């Protein structure tokens, strides 16, 4: 207790979610006993997806989609939440479940098999915490791809060779016709 007669304690509220009574009991050799009472309600902490990184930007069938998230408490000070269950839902179906590490991080991987717009929902939950989620819309495109340069050069060379052979054969044929006439 300080000079102004104020007694203060700081508690970390990591006990069960309940309604509590706090009784302050004063008793000393010089003063009579006295009690002060207050009520304390511990509510669930709110989770928040602090960060979400999705790669690649443009998604094509067969490509691997990678999602990295960071889960924390929605307080002023950043507190990462370890051991939270993070789930990924694709169009409402849960396809992956991960657990956040000590830095609140978890990652998902998914390979789309057909082109379509998809609704990707990430849900984070943990005991004594209020669930949080984020929904992202992503379009998966068909696997139409440009032919790589390494294939174009041999293809052109082959075409030129065929054209050259056809022309040569044609020339020989004309020469043969001229000789016969």
């Amino acid at each position, binding site marked *: 207790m300080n000079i102004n*007669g104020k007694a203060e304690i700081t508690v970390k509220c990591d006990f069960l979610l309940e*309604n509590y*009574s706090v*009784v302050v*009991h004063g*008793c000393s050799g010089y*003063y009579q006993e*006295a009690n002060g009472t207050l009520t304390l309600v*511990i509510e*669930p902490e709110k989770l928040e997806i602090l960060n979400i990184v999705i790669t690649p930007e443009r998604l094509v069938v067969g490509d691997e989609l990678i999602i990295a998230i960071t889960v924390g408490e929605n307080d002023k000070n950043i507190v990462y939440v370890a051991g939270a269950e993070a789930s990924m839902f694709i169009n409402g179906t849960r396809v992956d479940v991960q657990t956040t590490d000590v830095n609140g991080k978890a990652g998902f991987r998914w390979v789309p098999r057909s082109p379509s717009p998809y609704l990707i929902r990430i849900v984070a939950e943990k005991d004594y915490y209020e669930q949080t989620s984020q929904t992202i819309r992503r379009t998966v495109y068909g696997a139409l791809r440009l032919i790589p340069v390494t294939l174009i050069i041999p293809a052109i060379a082959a075409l030129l060779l065929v054209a050259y052979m056809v022309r040569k054969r044609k020339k020989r044929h004309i020469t043969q016709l001229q000789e016969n006439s």
Partner: protein
Amino acid sequence: MDVARAKTDDTGKATLVWVATIKPRVYSTYLVCEGLSGYEEYSKHIQITIGKGSTVITCPYENIRAEYTDYLSISSYPLTDDEEPIAGETPRFYLSINAQK
């Protein structure tokens, strides 16, 4: 322990105003008249009981809501019955659910 001295007034009355800051209990007290010129010494035994002061504990916030894992400060102010703050005492804080500590 020599507590204090007082001088008699015109009516022969000696009054002592003394703030009882010693530990509450029953004390044996002797009033002694001594060193009086022309008079014999005399002493009288009386009992003084100093009781504990009345206190009231007030809490500025009587309803507190906190979220799981948050840090929380709980304050209390023990006051005397004259509403004077009491410094240097250590109240205990008990947490209870359904009146069980």
